[in-house]
């Protein structure tokens, strides 16, 4: 399941649809599991009337968590060395997100083979919602 350095090259890509038609209930599931109960993510009345947003929206960390699922499916379990992102656009209910990893480098560090990746998650309109990088140990 793990990637092999000898079979990777710069420019290789891997992508997955990580959610389809995001439901408010899934956002609530994330609030419950993560412990972030900010009403901006589950309380339509507060979010529209007090905070002034068009609707509740997903936790950035939910988008990052779904992006992380793509990464572990690609690089294997327990292989990530680093994963960092910027939240570049808000994700609203109904979103369909596709997460993509692109190989930017293959190197050795402290006797381990490492792949460096650019990470990008886009919504159904092609708007990037998560942008970042990751590194993982490969065989």
């Amino acid at each position, binding site marked *: *399941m*793990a990637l092999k350095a000898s079979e990777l090259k710069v420019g290789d890509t891997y992508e997955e649809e*990580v*959610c389809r038609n995001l439901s408010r209930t*899934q956002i609530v*599931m*994330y609030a*419950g*599991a*993560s*412990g*972030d*109960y*900010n*009403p*901006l993510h*589950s*309380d339509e*009345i*507060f*979010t*529209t*009337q*007090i*905070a*002034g*947003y*068009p609707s509740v*929206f997903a*936790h*950035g*960390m*939910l988008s*990052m*968590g*779904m992006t*992380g*699922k793509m*990464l*572990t*499916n690609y690089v*294997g*379990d*327990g292989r*990530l*060395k*680093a*994963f*960092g*992102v*910027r*939240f570049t656009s*808000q994700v*609203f209910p109904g979103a369909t997100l596709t997460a993509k990893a692109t190989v930017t480098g293959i190197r050795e560090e402290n006797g381990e083979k490492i792949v460096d990746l650019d990470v990008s998650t886009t919504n159904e309109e092609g708007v990037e919602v998560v942008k*970042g990088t990751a590194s993982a140990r490969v065989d």
Partner: protein
Amino acid sequence: MAADKFPIEAGHIMMFARSVGDANNIYYDEDYAKTTEPGAIIAPPTFVQASAQFDPDYFLRPKIGQEWFGSAKGPTGITQRSGGGGGGGGGGGLHAEQHYVYHRTPTVGDVLTATTKPGKSWEKEGRRGGKLMFSESVTEYRDQKGELVVTATSVGVRTERPATAKE
């Protein structure tokens, strides 16, 4: 995020994996997990964020006997105006960036501690939200032996206006 004891528990990982839509059996089935390279149920990459559950003072969780700023009878449960507020408000702004460095993978049975220090802060003029005020915090997750497991750097942003306007 500060927690004296953040136990890495199988039931919590199952709920977290479901919430991010991750069907990988390593998060659900101990017998399967034993056959994998890590050899046990492990935490998904962003799981340490759930240490919020073990932070007694985490401000985005309603507390017993205290007012909560989300809606109740009215659109907010806060009856006394506490100043501030403003656009993008509600819960201390938005999450701008999150970075993890994994020294090893947290595994069921670990009991981590989380200690947070403030990092840099800076300002920027945004396209949608007006003036943006960024601040960084760095959380170290250490295991029962005191060894570093995950370093998490979070960047929060306060905006003058909601980052996405109502139609």
